[in-house]
């Protein structure tokens, strides 16, 4: 196919590339800054992993805590969210639909407000307030709707009630039906929801900034801290570490979302 492209095509391409550059260049520069010996001298000062090393020395704990909170948050949202989505999908009434709508509330309310509410309500329980579980509670509150919605979308797209009746007719009790039939068939929703929860919990700043104590700093809080009080190169190296941790899960999320679509059309 030899097809001569007109000037409009080249104009559009140029514009698109410019927009891409506008978005990508700062990211690349920031990451580059993290491996540059001296950012103010520029790239000619040489490349180094010294800053990444420094970040690891200073902030390894925040990275560890972020991972710990993210996976604990995932466990909580799986245990609470999947059954909740199942119950919501089974119930036909207006109450269930209203709850479904209310589920987006924690997303709509600013994280700071949610965090303040948590502090006002539970701040008095000192041990809880000081432990990482306090941040976990905030994260679960924030990410649970994403898990429920993701699973609910798959459940609505398959006729799981009839599938369950089919399993029941073959002698399967409730637990068997749930484990053999319901769970495997909403796996794509559970996976997508899980990646979403992990990614959101990892990057959550608004809530966490208010909920954390000096001893319970997470990665994004540490990042803000390092930009505020450290060399620019350290903050940038920190960003690089954050990227390396979060980008694979984002890519996986996109792949899963792409795979989920054609299946749900059937």
């Amino acid at each position: 196919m030899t097809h001569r492209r007109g000037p409009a095509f080249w104009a559009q391409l140029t514009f698109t590339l410019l927009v891409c550059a506008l978005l990508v260049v700062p990211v690349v520069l920031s990451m580059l800054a993290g491996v540059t010996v001296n950012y103010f001298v520029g790239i000619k000062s040489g490349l180094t992993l010294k800053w990444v090393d420094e970040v690891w020395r200073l902030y390894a704990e925040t990275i560890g805590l972020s991972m710990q909170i993210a996976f604990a948050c995932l466990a909580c949202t799986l245990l609470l969210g999947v059954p909740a989505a199942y119950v919501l999908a089974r119930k036909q009434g207006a109450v269930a639909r209203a709850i479904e709508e209310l589920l987006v509330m924690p997303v709509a309310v600013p994280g700071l407000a949610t965090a303040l509410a948590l502090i006002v309500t539970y701040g008095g329980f000192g041990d809880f307030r000081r432990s990482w579980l306090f941040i976990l509670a905030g994260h679960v509150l924030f990410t649970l709707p994403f898990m429920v919605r993701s699973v609910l979308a798959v459940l609505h797209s398959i006729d799981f009630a009839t599938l369950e009746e089919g399993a029941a007719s073959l002698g399967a009790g409730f637990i068997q039906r749930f484990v053999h039939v319901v769970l495997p068939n909403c796996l794509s929703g559970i996976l997508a929801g899980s990646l979403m929860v992990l990614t959101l919990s990892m990057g959550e700043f608004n809530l966490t900034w208010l909920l954390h104590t000096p001893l319970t700093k997470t990665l994004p809080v540490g990042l803000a801290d390092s930009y505020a009080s450290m060399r620019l190169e350290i903050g940038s190296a920190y960003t690089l570490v954050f990227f390396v941790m979060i980008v694979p899960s984002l890519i996986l999320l996109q792949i899963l979302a792409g795979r989920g679509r054609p299946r749900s059309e059937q």
Partner: protein
Amino acid sequence: MSGSFHLDAVPVRLRRCAKTFHGGVRALEPLDLDIRGGETVVFLGPSGCGKTTTLRILAGLERPDEGGRVFYGEDDVTALPIERRNVGMVFQSYALFPNMSVAENVAYGLRVRGVPKAERRERAEEMLAMMHIADLAGRRIDQLSGGQRQRVALARALVVRPRVLLLDEPLTALDAKLRDSLRLEIDRLLRALGITAIYVTHDQAEAMALGDRIVVMSKGRVAQVGTPREIYHRPADAFVADFIGTMNRLPAVAQDGRLLLGRGELPWSGPQGRIEVLVRPEDVALTASGGHVDARIAATVFLGDRTRVVAETADGLTLTVDAPGRTDLARGDAVSLGFDPARLLTLPE
């Protein structure tokens, strides 16, 4: 096609089974029904007539209202949910599990019953061979055609040797030609297995072809229970007469051993007075002259094996008449309609 596979013929009884849904909607009026062991009973009716509700009560997917009882043989299974009734069920949408292969779907009932893996595979393969789909064992469900899915669903329902086989509009989702061939196959299968089968459909041709007896339902009530011939030739009421096949309904006057049909008359020994007589299109003789009533052709539809003719009498009565396929008539032609008094029906008042 069944080989040595044969199942027990368990009779099924319904006693005073009614169903009222939330909000007081009565889906089923109290129903008593005896289904003999090994019999195929078809529930037939338009949508919303209560046939699916009845099937779901029989299956254990719904509980009848207080006082209703369901018996499989001598066992009162009313309180048992479907998973403890040992039934086989085929759903309109097949309800095959997309997360399992064909073989795993068929073996699922055995897996739930704790049958060892080797025996499970053997029995599933035997069942797939019986349904002529042995080569599909490893396929995923979304790689199957509608007809293949239907066979898998039947194999899956039968492998557990159910006491009763329940089929909920199993052919509705298929195209006409496939429906006809699968209908014949299901018919042969049910006879060969000797299983008690309960089949729900809104398609009268399917009901006629498959049912030892047909239960015609309307608005939550049983309109008539009978063999296909009884239902067709001796409908119990106007609903059954209209719902099954095509029926001409003609106003007539019967007196002194004569039946007056417009200007025509014929000998009559049935009920007297102003009555309505019913006659099937194939029971009216279409001749050039010498019949009982003169008429003109209003329309003809050539159907290959027969020609369906709409005739209008001088008195304004319209009749649908079936003539042989080679009959060559045109709109406006004069004809004479002949009736056999033995084939005229009247409905009980």
